[in-house]
Structure formats: C-alpha cells, structure tokens
C-alpha cells in the first residue's frame, strides 16, 4: 500500500501540528473547525506551513492533486480543456481525453462543467488532478456536494479508482460513514492528530471524548476508576461496573466512560436466569421508543439513562413497549474509557 509520512506545522489561520502517515486511501476526520481543510490546503502550498513533504515549495511546484469541496472546475473551459489545463505539449488534448476515459467520462469531454452532475464533476476534477501526475491526492469532503443516495456508490467508485492508481490519498471528511470505507484513518482534534489506526480500530476504540461523540457514541458519562483485587471496576451512578481496560494506560481516578447504543444488550423477563451475566446488569424502564429506518432507538431510564439501538430482528423478538421494565447488560469488553477532559 502506498505510504507517505506527513509532518506539518501551521500557525495561521489556526495553530496545527499534524504528524501522520497516509496509507492508501486515508480518511482525515475531526470535528468541524479542527483544521482538516487547512491541513489539505497547507499540503497544496495554499496555506503557509513548515514541514515535510514539499517543504517551502510554491503550490505550482508541488506534485499534489487537489480536489476541493466543490471541485473548482473552470467554468470557461469544457470538461476536456479542464483536464488538459495542467498538460503541456501538442498532444495535450489526446492525453486529457485518455484521462477522461480512465475516469469513465470519455463521452463528456465537450460538455461545459455547468451541465454535469455532482458525481460527473467530481470525476472530471479527479482526471484533472491526475493530469498533474501527482505524488499525493487530496480530497476535501468529496461526498458533501453529492446526493445522499448516490454518495456511497460514488465514493466506492472513487475509492476503487484511487486504489487502481496506487496513489496515497488523504480524504478530509466529517462523515464517519465515509471514513469507514477508507484503508486508514487519522483523527484531528484541537490542533493535533490524536489517533491514527484502521477505521475498525478507531471506531471501536476512539481515544478521546470528542472523537467518541463524532463517531456516534451516545452514552457518555463521568465516573471513577478503581482497582479491586487485580481488576478494574468503574464506580458510576448505577453502582459498580466491571471494565477491562488496557491496564498499561489506566490508573485509578476520575474518568469518562461510554458505550455505543448498539452494543447494549437487552435481557427480557423470559431470559433464562442461569444465563444472566454476573456483572454489569442494570434494571431499567423503557421511556421512549422511536423508529429510525429499520432500527429502533430506545431511551431507557433507571439509576442512569441510556440510549439503545436495536436492529429489527432483535425488536421483533423482544416486543419492547413504553413503560416496560427490562434488564440491560453492558458487556465489560464494550465499555470504553476516555481521559477526563476539561470541556467534557
């Protein structure tokens, strides 16, 4: 997989120190205002920065293909001439046509960009960026200008193309769903890269509270970590919960903890008593039920309030109703701990 190490320091328009590795198609995620676009623009040379790669080079001397959020196709040029823009020489139009065909836009060369759909504009912009023969591709929110229904399919196609090309590519996005389709993920928060792992690792084990929120953790609470008989327990509003954190990183003291809505298990009345887990079972009452597409979002309250997300087949088996009393199980392996943060 193509790799590129980035180590950038930016002072303006926001202070940012980004050290990350771009591995294949890499998602750059973070809350809005974290500096994702700024880092991309710095890599293009459009924002002053110091560091590697391309240190100090003017934008026109960097081999970078940049696809900005709205693609920035030249409105006074046809699709073909847009792609031919960075090319020189007598055969530039033929080479541009070949690139258009490569992104499956061959028949659209004569069309002005205004007459193309969002997905088509994106592919023309990709062909134009490729005409530059870049060492690195940068994509800023590639799905934001597309219809939600088409977004995944088009991004899949884009990802496939980028894999075929064998170029390292950095995709800035605030959309966790899109990030899941990438090979690698870097998380930007408060001016630095706080985590970089595969999407599966980041989604299951986000390292910071803001990131957990961004990735869809809805149950987040304060608590206190205690060590008992060689095991960690979490003192919470609902009593003691067993957790299995990496003991190398955690020391007893105040922490934030959370669990994903879809990782809480519901134990109905009929659940065989001998199979009820020994730990982390709480008695709650169903306060609210709301359908969300094919899943059911349930709010439950007891000593603490939780949100649950139940797939259709689970709800069909449970038949939950508002006011019903149930037990829920918070599996120790799914409880995530986050460092105490000032703005948490």
């Amino acid at each position, binding site marked *: 997989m193509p790799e590129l190490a980035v180590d950038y320091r930016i002072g303006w328009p926001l202070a940012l120190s980004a050290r990350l590795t771009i591995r294949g198609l890499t998602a750059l995620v973070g809350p809005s205002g974290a500096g994702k676009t700024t880092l991309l623009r710095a890599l293009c040379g459009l924002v002053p920065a110091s560091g590697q790669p391309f240190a100090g080079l*003017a*934008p*026109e001397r*960097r081999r*970078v293909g*940049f696809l900005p959020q709205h693609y*920035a196709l*030249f*409105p006074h040029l046809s699709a073909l001439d847009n792609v031919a823009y960075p090319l020189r020489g007598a055969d530039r139009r033929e080479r541009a046509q070949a690139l258009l065909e490569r992104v499956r836009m061959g028949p659209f060369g004569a069309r002005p960009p*205004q007459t193309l759909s969002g997905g088509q504009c994106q592919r023309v912009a990709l062909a134009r960026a490729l005409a530059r023969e870049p060492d690195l591709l940068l994509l800023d929110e590639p799905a934001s200008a597309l219809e939600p229904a088409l977004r995944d399919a088009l991004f899949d196609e884009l990802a496939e193309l980028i894999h075929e090309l064998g170029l390292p590519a950095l995709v800035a996005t605030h959309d966790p769903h899109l990030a899941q389709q990438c090979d690698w993920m870097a998380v930007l928060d408060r001016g630095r890269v706080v985590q970089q792992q595969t999407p599966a690792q980041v989604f299951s084990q986000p390292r910071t509270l803001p990131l957990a929120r961004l990735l869809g953790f809805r149950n987040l609470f304060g608590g206190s970590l205690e060590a008992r008989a060689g095991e960690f327990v979490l003192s919470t509003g609902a009593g003691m919960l067993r957790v299995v954190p990496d003991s190398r990183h955690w020391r007893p003291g105040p922490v934030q903890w959370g669990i994903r809505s879809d990782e809480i298990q519901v134990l109905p009345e009929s659940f065989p008593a001998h199979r009820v887990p020994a730990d982390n079972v709480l008695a709650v009452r169903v306060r609210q039920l709301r359908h969300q597409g094919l899943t059911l979002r349930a709010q439950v309250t007891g000593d603490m309030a939780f949100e649950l997300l139940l797939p259709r087949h689970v709800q069909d088996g449970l038949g939950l109703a508002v006011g019903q009393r149930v037990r829920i199980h918070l599996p120790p392996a799914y409880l995530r701990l986050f460092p105490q943060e000032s703005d948490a």
Partner: protein
Amino acid sequence: MMRRRMWIQRGSTAVGLTWLAFLLLPLLSLAASTSWRSFALAAGDVSALETSVIYTAFAMLAVVAFGTPLAFALARRRLRAQRLVEALLMIPLLTPPLALGILLTALYGPYGWLGGWLNQWGVSLTNTGPAFVLAQVYASAPYYVVGARAAFEAVPTDLEQIARTLGDSPGRVFRRVTLPLSLLGLGAALSIAWVRALGEFGVVLIMAYFPQGIPVKLWVNLQDYGLSSVYPLLWVFFLVGLPLPLLLGLLARQRTARRPLAPTAAF
C-alpha cells in the same frame, strides 16, 4: 394574494415603461427636430471627431495599463491602507469636473511646479494632445478601476488557487483563469470609462481647450451657430460613444443568464 401580486407586477411595469419613455424622450425629440435632408457637419467637426476618438483611445490605453493592476490589487490583496486608497481613488470622481480641471492646471499648467519642470524638457501640458489625454485619464480612470475591481472580485479565488496547484505561476493563472473570467466585466468597465472620457467637458475645457474634441466643439458650435446646427455633431457623438457600452452590457446580461458566475458588476 395572487391578485395583489398581479397588481404589483402591473404597477411596476407601468412605472418602468414611464421611466424608459422619460429617458428616451430627449433622444426621440432630437430625432424629430433634426433636419435630416440638410444633415451636414460644420467646419472642423470631422477633425473634432478624429481628436476625440484618437486621444480617447490613447487615454484608454493608459487607463487599462495602470488601472488593471490597481484594480486587481484592490480586489485580491488586503492592502495596509486599503480604505485610504479606495477613498483617494474616488476623489477625481467626486470632484466637480471644472474644479478638477483647475486643480490639474494648477499642477501641470505652465505656472504649476510640475508643469514648469516639464516645460524645461519641451513637454507642455496645456492645450496639447498629451494635456487632452491627461485630462481624460483623470476623469475616467476611477470608473474603470471601480468596475474592474468588481469584475476581479467576481472571479472565485478557489479557481485561481486550484490553477496554482495545477502547476501555473501567479502570472499564468492571471492570464489563463482570472482574465478570461473577468473579461466581460473588464470590457464593461472600459466601455464606461470610454464614454466618460469621450464626453469629458469640464476638465478638458480647462486643460486643453485645443485640440478641440467633440464636447468642446459642440459647445463652440452652440455659441457660434445656435442649437439646431449642433444636431449633426450630436448624432455623431452618440454613434461613437454609445454602441460599445450598450453592446457589452447586452453581452454581459446574456452571459450572466447562461452561467451563474457574474463578472460584470459594472452593469
């Protein structure tokens, strides 16, 4: 609600048409009053036409050469004294033409310090071609700069930046992206400057009574031969001055309707 909207539409159409008639009435009346059978120019009118067209063309060259970089800088850079530059730029526009003429004569005239110095080198800026052009430049440049700046501002900076990432130096970006996208707006700004320069009377009257261009010749004819005898030169004046801005205005409207990018804020 529908009824009310219809009345508003009808009312605004009526007001618009009345206003248009009000604007066109003098021109129609001129057409009616001109004695077309004995249509003839007075002595010296042709040379006034030549003077006006040739010197205005020179003035426009100077206005474009100096005004374009200034307009681009105002549109793209945050200059330290941006507001001050903008205000200073407006001075010639806000000064009554006669006053501006006197101001310029005080500087460039034979008794002005700069005029006196230039005179030593054989350059006279009173009643000469260069004086005529200088007066026109002062009178028309602000119109061009204001219009050109709006034209440049209408070009999205994203496009210029992406062109840089595609391997173009700032100069090439200007030529390949900024200029084509602002060309119509620049043309509109230039055509307004053209009309202002061509029709400039007050400043030119003081600085360069000679060589006589159309406005001064109209004034002279009016005094020497009376109102009706200046109609032919007046028609020539319209013929030279109006087609360019009207055509560009029309083109700009069409282009704006075809694509959302509107580099023609001058119209």
